């Protein structure tokens, strides 16, 4: 089974891209789709209705969605295999930009809109720098020069990334992406690992302690002036 992890900020065009991929590949391989989101998601219903494929969604609720994604991924692989899928597409929520949901196998795609601002590639950290492929959407909305400037910015963040530009609603210029997916290797469940470093997730704020000021807390702690408290800090 092949695996595709799709990340990117809200409204970047992730689902529009997924639709193009499904439309193109569904005749030759069996595709199942999992959406991981926090509060509300409709992609599973939409895709099931449009393409009659097996879909599922998972709400992370109080948990960070990337954290939740890691927790449920093994179950998701079993679910996909149980549905005899050739390709599992996982669309992440893409919210806090600290982490990236990509794994050491399969393909990781970051979807970025060309109107998201010139500094977005730098601000998005691991979501861009650990992706295998960056797909730039909404290219019909900006000038060619501006598209080239954005692409240059992404290359400076991640020189090795494969860059593709598209109008995802029409699915222009995506042949290379379809080839990359079709030629990607099957995953091996036993050796599947997160690509990036997860954040430290056990601090007193995370577990609900409400007192104000770093003295009342331990775990991930940083003072206002930027100095690291005596306990532990692993930012930057």
């Amino acid at each position, binding site marked *: 089974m092949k695996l595709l992890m799709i990340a990117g900020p809200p409204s970047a065009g992730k689902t529009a891209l997924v639709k193009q991929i499904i439309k193109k590949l569904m005749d030759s391989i069996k595709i199942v789709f999992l959406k991981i989101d926090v509060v509300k998601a409709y992609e599973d219903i939409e895709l099931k209705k449009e393409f009659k494929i097996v879909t599922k969604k998972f709400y992370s609720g109080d948990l960070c969605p990337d954290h939740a994604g890691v927790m449920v991924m093994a179950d998701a692989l079993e679910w996909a295999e149980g549905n005899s899928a050739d390709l599992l597409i996982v669309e992440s929520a893409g919210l806090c930009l600290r982490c990236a949901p990509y794994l050491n196998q399969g393909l990781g795609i970051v979807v970025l809109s*060309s109107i998201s601002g010139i500094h977005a590639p730098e601000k998005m950290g691991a979501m861009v720098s650990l992706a295998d492929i960056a797909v730039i959407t909404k290219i019909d909305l900006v000038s060619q020069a501006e598209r080239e400037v954005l692409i*240059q910015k992404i290359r400076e963040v991640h020189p090795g990334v494969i860059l593709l530009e598209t109008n995802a609603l029409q699915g222009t210029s995506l042949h290379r992406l379809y080839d990359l997916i079709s030629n990607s290797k099957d995953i091996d469940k036993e050796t599947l690992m997160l690509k990036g470093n997860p954040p430290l997730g056990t601090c007193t704020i995370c577990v609900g302690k409400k007192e104000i000021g770093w003295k009342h807390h331990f775990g991930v702690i940083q003072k206002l002036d930027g100095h690291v408290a005596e306990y532990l800090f692993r930012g930057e």
Partner: protein
Amino acid sequence: MVRDITIMPGLDKAGVRENFSVITLCAGETVSIVGPTGSGKTAFITDIELLAQGDTSTRRRVLLNGEVPDDEVRNNPSLKPIAMITQKTKCFADLTAEEFLQIHARARGIKNFGIVGDTIELANKFTGEKITAESRVTILSGGQTRSLMIADAILIGAAPVILLDEIENAGIFKQEVLRIIHDSGKIVIFVTHDPVIALLTKKRIIMEHGSVKMVLYRSESEVRAAQNLLELDNRVSVIRENLRAGKTITKDLLAVNFY
């Protein structure tokens, strides 16, 4: 080097195959694309810009020098031999004109940063509102953005193929633009509603319902008509600038000598 571009037929809006075998555009050639709005003019040049391989909504294919271009040429901006000026007159990149051009020059593999100043200087020949190196591109006016993008395409894009989508809009000095890019040895393609621009090109591609309806070559009488139109257009420009400056229009401003 690009000697020619070949466009292979695609489908019109109803999914019917276009009625031409191939269209070939050669270096040094100027072409205009005309037709009503929604007839597929912008889609036609977008296909060229993307070097479409049956993977755009029109399903056209575009060849460079008679061959399918490499993926690398299609996807790496620094190798792309095509610069397109779209109708977009809004920039979203929060950068100064200087920073924007510097990054674009890097993207195009240009080491000489003197080109940034030259580009801004050229842009100022196309617009009456001065652009400075410190101007933020997000707040430039439509005419300033268009001027900067055209200057950028000529000097930084420096592409052998230039595509211009309705440059007559957004209040720039279009004759100045035409003068500079004409006879440059490039393939220059104008999408236009402007009769002056349409008649200054040797070849016209007529669009209808998303497909190429016909390809026309400029006749001798059209060459003369173009000269007359240029004269008229100059007068209109003078009157426009006078009106903008708060002057009144006198009778001698309206006199035109036809060829």
